[in-house]
């Protein structure tokens, strides 16, 4: 996967989100480039040098050239350590490189640059940066330039994101499901149809990448990734299903409200003992037999 991302050159756009951060993939790509013997320039606006170099071994760290826009990007501290010309000056200084051979430039992140520079200026600078190898005015033969740009998608409107993605040769959109990260890769090769691919991967502590199977399809559709499906019928206090015998017994039962012909007969023809029944009443000695009409006061 990393090889295919790095194969094309030009601008590789990594689009990440708050939940699926893309810096580890960026660092995995940087490691891969450095292991190929390339010089890697890093323009870092969001994390400190220590934090960025953390996890790389000494060989890779020796291949990295760190351009610090983190400590004092806007020259507030006035210590003289800030880049002359601000972020744009730093980018332009990278354009004027002299060393031959292929170079990787990592921009961490394009979002920071996009918030501080006009979109058109940034796009033009990125274009010159990624097309240095075909620059006709330059006499010295310089190798291929690859630009890796990290973009936090939520921070920008569709306009700037669209402009940047039209500049990019390769676009990686990070996502995931069930705790598993995925990368959707869109490759635009010249004179070919763009290709789409999706990879599931995880990144190890030393920033090497391992491809994964990806979660099964029915789980991908689960909109609540952190709830495991629970079998609701496992702890019931009653039967959900009947056996054949139980079903027959239930069907043969006559319910009390069902009016059948036997019931009708039983009601119409009263039994022999019932016709001659009498009520005997013997008043008790203490029975209060009131002669007056109890409803007299109602005046009916």
């Amino acid at each position, binding site marked *: 996967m990393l090889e295919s991302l790095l194969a094309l050159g030009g601008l590789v756009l990594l689009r990440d989100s708050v939940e699926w*951060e893309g810096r580890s993939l960026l660092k995995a790509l940087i490691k891969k480039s450095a292991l190929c013997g390339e010089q890697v320039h890093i323009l870092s606006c969001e994390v400190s040098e220590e*934090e960025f170099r953390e996890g790389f071994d000494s060989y890779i760290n020796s291949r990295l050239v760190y351009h610090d826009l983190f400590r004092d990007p806007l020259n507030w501290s006035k210590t003289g350590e800030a880049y002359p010309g601000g972020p744009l000056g730093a980018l332009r200084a990278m354009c004027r490189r002299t060393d031959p051979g292929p170079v990787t430039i990592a921009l961490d992140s394009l979002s920071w640059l996009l918030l501080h520079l006009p979109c058109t200026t940034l796009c033009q600078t990125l274009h010159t940066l990624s097309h240095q190898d075909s620059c006709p005015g330059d006499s010295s033969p310089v190798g291929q330039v690859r630009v890796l740009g990290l973009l936090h998608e939520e921070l920008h409107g569709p306009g700037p994101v669209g402009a940047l993605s039209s500049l990019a040769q390769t676009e990686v959109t990070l996502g995931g499901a069930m705790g598993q990260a995925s990368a959707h890769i869109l490759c635009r090769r010249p004179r070919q149809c763009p290709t789409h691919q999706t990879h599931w991967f995880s990144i190890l502590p030393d920033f090497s990448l391992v491809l994964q199977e990806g979660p099964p399809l029915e789980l991908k559709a689960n909109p609540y990734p*952190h709830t495991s499906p629970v079998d609701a019928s496992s702890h019931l206090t009653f039967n959900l299903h009947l056996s054949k015998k139980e079903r027959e017994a239930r069907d043969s039962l006559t319910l009390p409200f069902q009016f059948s012909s036997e019931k009708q007969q039983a009601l119409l023809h009263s039994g022999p003992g019932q016709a001659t029944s009498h009520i005997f009443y013997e008043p008790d000695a203490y029975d209060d037999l009131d002669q007056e009409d109890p409803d007299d006061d109602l005046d009916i």
Partner: protein
Amino acid sequence: MFTELNNLLNTAPDRAEQGKLTLLCDAKTDGSFLVNHFLSFYLKANCKVCFVALIQSFSHYNIVGQKLGVSLTTARECGQLVFLEGLKSSVDVFFQAQEEPHPLQFLRETNAGNLQPLYEFVREALKPVDNRGAAWRCPVLLVDDLSVLLSLGMGAVAVLDFIHYCRATVCWELKGNVVALVHDSGDAEDEENDILLNGLSHQSHLILRAEGLATGFCRDVHGQLRILWRRPSQPTAQRDQSLTYQYKIQDKSVSFFAKGMSPAVL
């Protein structure tokens, strides 16, 4: 300081992490209990705290602090706490000579530029000093809250720049911590606030998001807290970094329980 929250975050005042940005965020509820938690937590952890309080008065935070077992007055007197009371000092901006720098200088400017004076105030407040009397553990910046700066006319990028510089100074240079609260307007279309919230989310190491219940107000469950760990110390294959709990705020503590497991329901 709420012990239950410490347990969820796997931390304690005597082993507080350093160099971290914690983003507090509230949506459809009031997340100020989180601010009070972190204020008392870092005071108990013996850290030097700079508190930029733009929402409430000093006495309000002091009363809440006393319930949680810290005295802000004492902390301020012994130099542990530097308190910027936004409600009071915003008036001072208009009654002092213009030449004197004021942290809330932007209130006076017609086209609000940047928050550099506020950043310089924070840097001054947390600058390590060479006195043998009190040695504080690490500096901490606490902001309640950043959304107010947007309401006062600052742009989201200016507020992000302010936090960027605070992070570079406090988290990286001085190995301290930054904790900031931002409101989430939800579906109300507030673009600036969304940029601020998302920009900070990308920079932060830990996001605590207090949300009101989707089903509305409830007497026994006051809301739910989502905990999202970003930038783990090692990017492992396993990413079990997001947790959700429901909570109930009590007089002096907050109790947390798993979703749907409120003692009142069971």
